[in-house]
């Protein structure tokens, strides 16, 4: 079992609310990621970080923002939730290899978000 945690596991919230999804890992990994996954669909990368104070947008356009102030913590924030944000959000981490690429990713259990 990977040492990566996400809270909350489930969240039902009204349109327009601000929410923060928490992700923490205790493995000391430099790289962290946020993915969005709908049922039966592939994971889409929405944000990633290569280390403290480093954040980048992923492939899928997202209205969320992230921060990386501490190595172990990578929260994702939605300033104003909408029904289109309803999805499962998965956080992952991996070690940084000198050569780069191909690292195993360790996933958290996910947060299932429902915006009414």
């Amino acid at each position: 079992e990977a040492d990566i945690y996400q809270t909350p596991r489930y969240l039902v919230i009204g349109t327009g609310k601000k929410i923060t999804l928490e992700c923490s890992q205790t493995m000391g990994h430099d790289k962290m990621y946020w993915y969005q996954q709908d049922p039966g669909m592939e994971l889409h990368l929405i944000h990633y970080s290569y280390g403290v104070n480093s954040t980048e947008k992923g492939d899928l356009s997202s209205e969320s923002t992230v921060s990386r102030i501490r190595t172990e913590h990578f929260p994702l924030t939605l300033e104003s939730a909408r029904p289109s944000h309803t999805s499962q959000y998965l956080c992952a981490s991996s070690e940084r290899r000198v050569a780069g690429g191909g690292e195993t990713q360790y996933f958290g259990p996910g947060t299932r978000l429902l915006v009414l």
Partner: protein
Amino acid sequence: SQKIEQNSEALNIQEGKTATLTCNYTNYSPAYLQWYRQDPGRGPVFLLLIRENEKEKRKERLKVTFDTTLKQSLFHITASQPADSATYLCALWAYGNNRLAFGKGNQVVVIP
């Protein structure tokens, strides 16, 4: 456009038989290919990694092959058990993309 294709139909297989899943890709030059297992409502769990210069990798009852000419990877579960029932995801890390790209996954149901 770049694509990673896995069979959308669930694979139903009798316990004890070998389950074989296919991952086909187009317009990628993968350096690494990985397979993950995902159970309902959970995050994916890493199973195996195979590099572009490797043909086959094994881990216990799992075997992965990688054919860069056919642009295909096969994932085998031998002596399948009901506990192997899950969705299996193929993921590529390609030069120039610098990120892991996932397929939609293929569900396996092992019937006792």
